């Protein structure tokens, strides 16, 4: 008998992961750590790469963080980011759920769903930069489609009114940016949720129907709990995306209108790549943002975790431990 030598396949697991790990270390891990370090240094000035830790130049180690947190612009940017995200997320999840309920309803089969899904999803693949500028021209002052509609509708009711400058006021700017975000993402969220509902076993719905649940009850008491995991996924990705918002506010309004549309990401870029090139302060702001996102994501995962699954996992671990002890 030929004694075939035993091949150790495990090493291929390592070999095949090397490209990922190397790239990750060089292009993500190192920059992240570098950013953390820069947050504690005096690095500033265009193209400067020479830095010293703050205590060595006689400053408080946390001076950059303090500067950022006490800066009125950062506070405003932070508030704006949250406001815009919330203004966009609530209608986004609301309408996505509404359409999900309608399109997946077993009793009234809506025709032309495929077409609606394709249409609603379309803005998501369009370059956000293009959409931002398109909406900017649409809400132009004194002439633009939005003002044309506004004046036209007023005329119908017999009211003469002047063009409104949407881009000079705090709240209209926020609402419009939130709307563009909503416009780009509600279809995406809807498609995700519908996929989740389709994945639910039909027996669950049949049982609910037999028990006499009406549409609304079925949706709130059966469908939504079943798609909890997907809603978590949507919430977390939207939150991370929302806190990283850049393209749309940057090109829609920039720093105009008294920073009404300034987001934290825009703040970071403006600090680092314009004015006096305060890389250190921008890095500190990034770190603050990073910590906030990690904390929030962890909380969300904890609140919405699958409790049954967690229990099973715990039990399995205990069993394993017991088995090991027995051995």
């Amino acid at each position, binding site marked *: 008998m030929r004694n075939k030598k035993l091949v150790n396949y495990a090493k291929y697991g390592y070999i095949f992961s090397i490209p990922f790990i190397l790239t990750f270390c060089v292009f993500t891990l190192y920059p992240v750590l*570098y950013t953390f370090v820069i947050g504690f240094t005096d690095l500033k000035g265009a193209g400067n790469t020479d830095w010293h830790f703050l205590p060595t130049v006689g400053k408080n180690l946390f001076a950059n963080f303090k500067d950022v947190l006490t800066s009125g612009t950062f506070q405003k940017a932070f508030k704006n980011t949250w406001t815009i995200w919330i203004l966009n997320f609530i209608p986004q999840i609301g309408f996505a759920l509404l359409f999900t309920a309608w399109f997946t309803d077993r009793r*009234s089969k809506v025709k032309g769903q495929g077409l609606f899904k394709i249409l609603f*999803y379309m803005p998501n693949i369009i370059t956000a930069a293009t959409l931002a500028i398109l909406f900017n021209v649409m809400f132009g002052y004194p002439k633009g489609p939005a003002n044309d509609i506004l004046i036209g509708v007023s005329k119908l009711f017999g009211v003469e009114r002047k063009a409104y400058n949407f881009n000079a006021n705090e709240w209209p700017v926020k609402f419009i940016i939130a709307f563009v975000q909503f416009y780009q993402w509600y279809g995406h969220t809807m498609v995700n949720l519908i996929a989740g509902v389709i994945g639910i076993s039909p027996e669950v719905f049949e049982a609910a129907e037999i028990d006499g649940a009406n549409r609304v009850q079925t949706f709130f008491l059966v469908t939504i709990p079943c798609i909890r995991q997907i809603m978590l996924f949507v919430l977390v990705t939207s939150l991370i995306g929302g806190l990283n918002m850049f393209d749309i506010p940057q090109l829609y309004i920039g720093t105009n209108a008294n920073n009404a549309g300034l987001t934290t990401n825009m703040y970071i870029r403006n600090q680092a790549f314009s004015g006096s090139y305060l890389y250190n302060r921008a890095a500190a702001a*990034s770190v603050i943002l990073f910590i906030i996102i990690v904390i929030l994501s962890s909380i969300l995962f904890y609140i919405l975790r699958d409790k049954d699954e967690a229990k099973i996992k715990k039990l399995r671990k205990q069993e394993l431990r017991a088995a090991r002890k027995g051995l």
Partner: protein
Amino acid sequence: MSDNAIRTSSIKKNDTWLKVVIYIVAIFFSIMTLFPFLMMLANCFKSSDEVQQSALTFWSADPFGNFKKNWTFIMSKEFKPAVGFMNSFIVATCSTILNVYFSSLTAYAISAYEWKFRDAFNGMIMAIMMIPGTVTTIGFYQMVYKLGMVNKLSILIIPSIAAPMTVFFMRQYLQASLSMEIVQSARIDGAGEFRIFNQIVVPLMKPAIATQAIFAYVGSWNNLFMPLILLTDKEKRTLPVMVSLLTNDSYRTEFGAVYVGLFITVLPLIVVYAFLSRYIVEGVALGGVKS
């Protein structure tokens, strides 16, 4: 009996009403989605004066003359869509290929082999997905600057080898569809591990690769933040960076021309979407369920 019949008919009546409401709202949203694009198309064929008079009408005195004028104006300045297209094409194509190939390879390493740090590595990938892009920006820029790689398109391409999101989806797909028996029989036939991956596993993963490739492509094509920071050379601008030039003051009064500029950048996306929309929407659904 009759009581039941009345109940059924009232349910039916309610159903019709509900359906009417559903269609009205859905059609309203469809119009809302299409309106900006239709308006953009209409205004491409208008002179700036006509846009000023009313941006909403679909009428123009000299549509083709205006379009030509708008076109000449928009092409005469810094805005060079051809350059943007070329750069975006290079970046998006290369990074998509690297993204899907190496993500498949990594996912295969996790699902097919038993190795010591496998679970730890898998957990790490999940954690990395949460790292927001911003947090790397400053450090990344400093590193790139020191390496002298600013204004090199390759710096936008190479990092896509490590795409945790894609690895995550690929792993989900492999767990459901990879049977180790095929791999074993290929081993018995004497195929090397690398060859097995390229000739057996990759073809097996085609549906997942297609879906993820579309998303990687769209994501890379539309990316503005990093290119805006890294590319300062005019000849290296990608399309979104090109588009961002349209906010410059020199275009402020040429409304028709700005619409043409936007239209040029949107058109290819819409054409591609018209052909691939079904797969794209199905792909989104696939990603959502699996997570």
